[in-house]
């Protein structure tokens, strides 16, 4: 996509502005996931900073965790590669602040598990994340029933807490989640862990109709979208498609058994992201 510059925005509205812009351009958004410092801090930064210009509309950055229970083998391996560098929350936030020096429009969402954040301290985390230029946070193992202790600090710092919904979330349960949701809603397209099954287009279409009855927020769909064709098919029914494992797999392939990193890795990753963006453009009639 052609990037449209806007004024510096520190009000936590980058997410809303980005989805408004996508509406204006009449196309769905591409959300890309990579894990911080994977495979090395330098290569990660090259990829991160290159993402907006190849069509990533929102960027999710994974905070690595030793026990990523909702993730499949690709993202587990990615977390392990990151943890070899002893990546912590301060490192992740430093990377976001660095990114923000040149990129002010693209929303950045942190995604991770609760324990590292809890250990850091909810309030300290929210304040530091806001200073770094983070727009939203997804905490995989923090359902709405447990989320308030962190969300109170995120709200105070204008950071959106983005909640997951799943095929297993009943109509009865959806209001519990969606009444607390802000920014956008993340729909997990498969009952399973990341990067395993392929999302089913018809099931997603049905699920979107169900979700839209409960929320006016934009809906991003993830888990099980691996190719430009799948991204195009799924995003025809939602506001954005999230691709994670497929990108992270390319990162993993760029690391040799001896740990040596392919110097052209960032180019390969960014080319793939570009193909996703191209595939997804024109998904809407």
């Amino acid at each position, binding site marked *: 996509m052609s990037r449209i510059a806007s004024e510096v925005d520190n009000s936590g509205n980058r997410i809303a502005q980005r989805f408004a812009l996508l509406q204006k351009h009449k196309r769905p958004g591409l959300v890309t996931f990579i894990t911080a410092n994977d495979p090395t801090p330098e290569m990660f930064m090259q990829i991160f900073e290159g993402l907006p210009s190849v069509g990533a509309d929102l960027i999710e950055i994974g905070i690595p965790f030793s026990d990523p229970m909702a993730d499949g083998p690709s993202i587990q391996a990615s977390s392990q590669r990151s943890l070899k560098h002893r990546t912590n929350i301060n490192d992740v936030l430093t990377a976001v602040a660095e990114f923000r020096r040149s990129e002010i429009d693209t929303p950045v969402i942190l995604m991770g598990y609760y324990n590292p954040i809890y250990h850091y301290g909810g309030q300290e985390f929210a304040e530091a994340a806001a200073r770094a230029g983070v727009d939203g946070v997804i905490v995989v193992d923090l359902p709405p029933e*447990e989320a308030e202790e962190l969300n109170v600090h995120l709200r105070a710092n204008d950071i959106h807490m983005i909640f997951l919904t799943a095929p*297993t979330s009943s109509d009865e349960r959806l209001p519990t989640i969606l009444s607390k949701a802000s920014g956008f809603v993340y729909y997990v397209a498969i009952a399973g*862990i990341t990067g395993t099954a392929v999302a089913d287009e018809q099931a997603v279409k049905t699920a979107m109709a169900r979700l839209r009855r409960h929320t006016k927020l934009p809906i991003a769909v993830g888990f099980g979208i691996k190719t430009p064709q799948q991204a195009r098919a799924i995003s025809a029914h939602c506001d954005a498609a999230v691709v994670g494992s497929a990108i992270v797999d390319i990162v993993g392939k760029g690391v040799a058994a001896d740990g040596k990193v392919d110097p052209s890795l960032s180019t390969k990753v960014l080319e793939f992201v570009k193909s996703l963006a191209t595939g997804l453009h024109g998904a809407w009639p």
Partner: protein
Amino acid sequence: MAEAPNTYKAGADDNGHFGLFGGRYVAETLMPLILEVERAYNACRADPKFAAELTHLNTHYAGRPSALYFAERLTAHFGGAKLYFKRDELNHTGSHKINNCLGQILVARRMGKTRIIAETGAGQHGVATATVCARFGLKCVIYMGAKDIERQKSNVFRMRLLGAEVRPVEKGSATLKDAMNEALRDWVANVNDTYYLIGTAAGPHPYPTMVRDFQSVIGEEVRDQLHAAEGRLPDSLVAAVGGGSNAIGLFHPFLDDVGVKMFGVEAAGRGINTGEHAASIAGGSPGVLHGNRTYLLQDENGQITDAHSISAGLDYPGIGPEHAWLHFQGRVDYVSATDIEALDAFQLCSKLEGILPALEPAHALAYVTRAAPKLPKDHIMVMNMCGRGDKDVFTVAEALGAKL
């Protein structure tokens, strides 16, 4: 220490919290499942037919009540407290794990589930799960760390004989915590037909409460049996704590008897100060893992660190949330015993009582060895002999440098 509550038995609250601890820290995909388990369990709890069915199985299948045994020679050896063993190692399958498995398999059946998954460390819970699945004709998949498979080969074979599929987990430290991660991943991917039969008093609500309730038969029996034998309550209770299911089962019925002191014995591995241990309370801090907030072994960045214990059943970097709360309240004292102390206790018990304890209760006995000699002769101490040591003979032989 927090202010003493009116009762120590009120938890968990409606959201599964024991004070700061417990809760339901799971991905949304799992949330509806655990809410469904909670509804099903509450319905079972309210149904006298469920209780009757469980009691029947406990009596005729598991062999309950287990004996309360006066350990006469160890008592004489220590020269202090009068020591009783609650003989839960005599249960069918050789440990207390069957108590919980019989309860949960009835819940799973009422939910109409046809496939059972479980994690196991020492293999005792895996064997108990495989056993009840065989008994009720349900498909059974057991996740077990590759390292644990190596040190518990006989239990692995037992599970296979019982018709279970044992899936090795190579990830992470290849022990119990990683097996639990894989079981949770399996569950999210098989939501319709699968029931996750958690083996310890940890995990997301309602598991810590449900497992405790099914294990409380231990303490309830001790109460009656000791009343018959001594006409009074015990002075102290001692149990090993990994996740803590045998300990909470012994302790819970006595929590409001303020005169009864309680000691949970964590595995100190090579020593707490070496960092190679499994003592979450002595050497950990509060955090969130596997669906609950509790004490965890973790580094300065909140990454979970590997536990170490000679006992595969205690080799876990966390502890059940109710124990975390009981520690916080000061109601139970959490102490620890090292690998070497447990090995010494293992040998002592074998020679003096003719009972090979599992390495888990050998940790409890190691604490008894330290505490009992200093106590008066009219002090009655009950230790939970929660498992038998047959499964551990290879580990013990290796540790003692014996060739088999």
